[in-house]
């Protein structure tokens, strides 16, 4: 569906993308996760043909020229900046974008109503967009890209500056699009979003992809061990007994509380349980994408 090979892009002396390659299958949600300036927006612009790469190939639905009209019709792009007319109402905006894609008459009215419903703007559809809150504008900005039912959606940080309610609405919408079988590329610097929405994630930093895989594998590879804190029902005196079942040599025992790190938390806990230990409570802090990024780059995502 989407195939990107050895993409390079420089702005003057600054490397925006450095030999980037990835592919996204039909119906998959692919995340580009990286801090600001990592090259996410450049990647989106190259994918939709707004800028040309210095080298490399972008293939969308088998076509290597994203500027072809038939390719563009299959694309829905949600740019990072608001791409709506604030002087018009939500309904007028949707009508305009629909007409640009050749949608007319009853179909346009139906699609407009659907989009307004998805964005939660049905009641305020006649109001000028300039009177909307930031979250409402973001929601409208997003649904304007769905109107023509594109098979590929490119979302460039759609939740920037959005309130929690609008963020959840945007997530629900993206998940609904995913269920409909659309292929989605989603850029973000929020690891929670990537973790929630994406089937596959590319960790991007300084224009380079550091690794690509699903969340679980990325964490397994780069996230480091999970931290476990378990409270036992009875006090034990010999810590060596526990060490037999846990591969952490630095295991700590304080009264009835044991703390250890493991890359296989469930298996370790099961082994301890089988050895006769009874747990009063267990806290498992697994690694996340933030840890993945930290371990890969030595920096935090939002540094």
């Amino acid at each position, binding site marked *: 569906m989407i195939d990107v090979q050895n993409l390079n892009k420089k702005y003057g002396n600054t490397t925006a993308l450095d030999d980037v390659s990835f592919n996204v299958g039909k119906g998959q949600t692919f995340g580009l996760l990286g801090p600001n300036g990592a090259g996410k927006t450049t990647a989106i612009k190259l994918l939709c043909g707004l800028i040309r790469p210095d080298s490399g190939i972008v293939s969308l639905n088998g076509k290597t020229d994203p500027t072809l009209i038939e390719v563009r019709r299959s694309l829905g*792009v949600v740019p990072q900046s608001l791409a*709506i007319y604030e002087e018009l109402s939500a309904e007028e905006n949707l009508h305009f974008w629909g007409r*640009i894609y050749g949608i007319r008459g009853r179909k346009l009215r139906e699609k407009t109503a659907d989009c307004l419903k998805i964005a939660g703007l049905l009641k305020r559809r006649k109001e000028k967009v300039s009177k909307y809150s930031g979250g409402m504008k973001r929601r409208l900005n997003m649904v304007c890209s769905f109107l023509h039912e594109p098979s590929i959606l490119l979302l460039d940080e759609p939740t920037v500056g959005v309130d929690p309610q609008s963020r959840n609405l945007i997530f629900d919408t993206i998940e609904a699009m995913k269920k409909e079988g659309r292929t989605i590329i989603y850029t973000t610097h929020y690891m929670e979003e990537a973790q929630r929405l994406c089937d596959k994630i590319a960790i991007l930093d300084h224009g380079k992809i550091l690794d690509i895989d699903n969340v679980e594998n990325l964490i397994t590879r780069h996230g480091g061990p999970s931290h476990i804190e378990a409270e036992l029902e009875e006090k034990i005196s010999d810590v060596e007994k526990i060490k037999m079942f846990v591969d952490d040599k630095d295991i700590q025992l304080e009264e009835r509380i044991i703390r250890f790190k493991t890359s296989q938390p469930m298996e370790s806990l099961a082994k301890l349980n089988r050895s006769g230990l009874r747990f009063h409570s267990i806290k498992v802090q697994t690694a996340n994408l933030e840890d993945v990024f930290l371990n890969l780059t030595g920096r935090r995502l939002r540094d």
Partner: protein
Amino acid sequence: MNKVFFLAVKDIRVLMSDRGNIFWVLVFPLVFAFFFGAIYSDAGEGPTGMKIAVVDEDKSDFSTSYISKLESSDALKVSLLSREEAIEQVRKSRIAAAVIIKKGMGDGFEAIFNSEEPKIEIAADPSRKMESGYLQGLLAKAQFEALSGNFTDRNWMKDQISQWRGEIEDANDLDTRQANLFLDLFDSFDTLFDDINDQNLKMGFNGDILNFSQTNISRESDGPLTSFQITFPQAMLWGILGCAATFAISIVKERAGGTFQRLLVGPTGRAHILAGKGAACFITCSFIMCIQYIGAKLFFKMPVGDLPLFVLAYLCTILCFVGIMMLISTLGRTEQSAGGAGWAIIMIMAMLGGGMMPLYFMPAWLRSLSNISPVKWGIYALEGAIWRNFSLMEIAIPCLILLAIGFAAFLLGVYSLSKQQD
């Protein structure tokens, strides 16, 4: 084509949704045309006489009659003021001159014709010599007209003769023979004024002094018939300039926001977007032209010499500024920078091209310099159709220049826009 239409409609809606835009493209040009049109035509009252102030320090019957003669003159617009007020008005150039009628003016012939102590004083700016000379002629004429009333007054004349008789009798340096000659003449006048009937007195002693007959001949149409014919081409240009600047800024605004990108990644090419902007600008300017034309005809009674040529001139002017709009839109990456640069260029073009002060009133060197401004050619073409009585061949020159400038600016703008990576 549909896409261009939808883009144009959207742009017009966006433009019209902003009251500020409406003011600049529609209201301001009309206000401009009306305001300056009224100023150039002296508040629309038509031709008026020379404004003077009269100070009556004499307060006699003669001075009253004299003032009424001045007031009845079409060539003068008289206001009665005190000496201080009158001189202040002259100083501030609000009036051409102040005429001060001194005390004693109505004391008779002696006072009126006393060259040693003039009873009428003219206070005027020395740089306005021509008006001053003209005024002296008008004052003399009024003076004789006032006097002719006294000549038909039997008693006043007999009083004057009695006064002169007394002066001759008292004159010691006059020899007796000469004195008798005057006294005989005065006796004859006395007899005449005693015996002549009223009808003959009026016929014989009344009449205009140095009277003229006037034939009104309208000049050939080598200039505008009304001041609005000067200000409306300017106003129309301001409408087009406002429109061009607004649309140029709207292109920058779309580029700075995300809408330009969204349009580019849709099934619309750059050409569609620019054509849509151009079409919107063209339609809006045409609409403004219609409003201005109707306003000019209905409310200002502005005659238009040749309507088809006027439409041709207007369309060429719009096309020229649509091209310039495209170029202006590439001058900055933000609304502020493009807006600032755009308005600066427009103001210079307008100043040079007669958008502020009519070319008609400009010095020759500035008129030559104005050739570099498309505003000049726009106004020239419009004036050609409105009052200069241009033929098709004559109007073709400014029209072709406008089209050439517009085309060159359009190409340059599109090239520059395509070079700027969005």
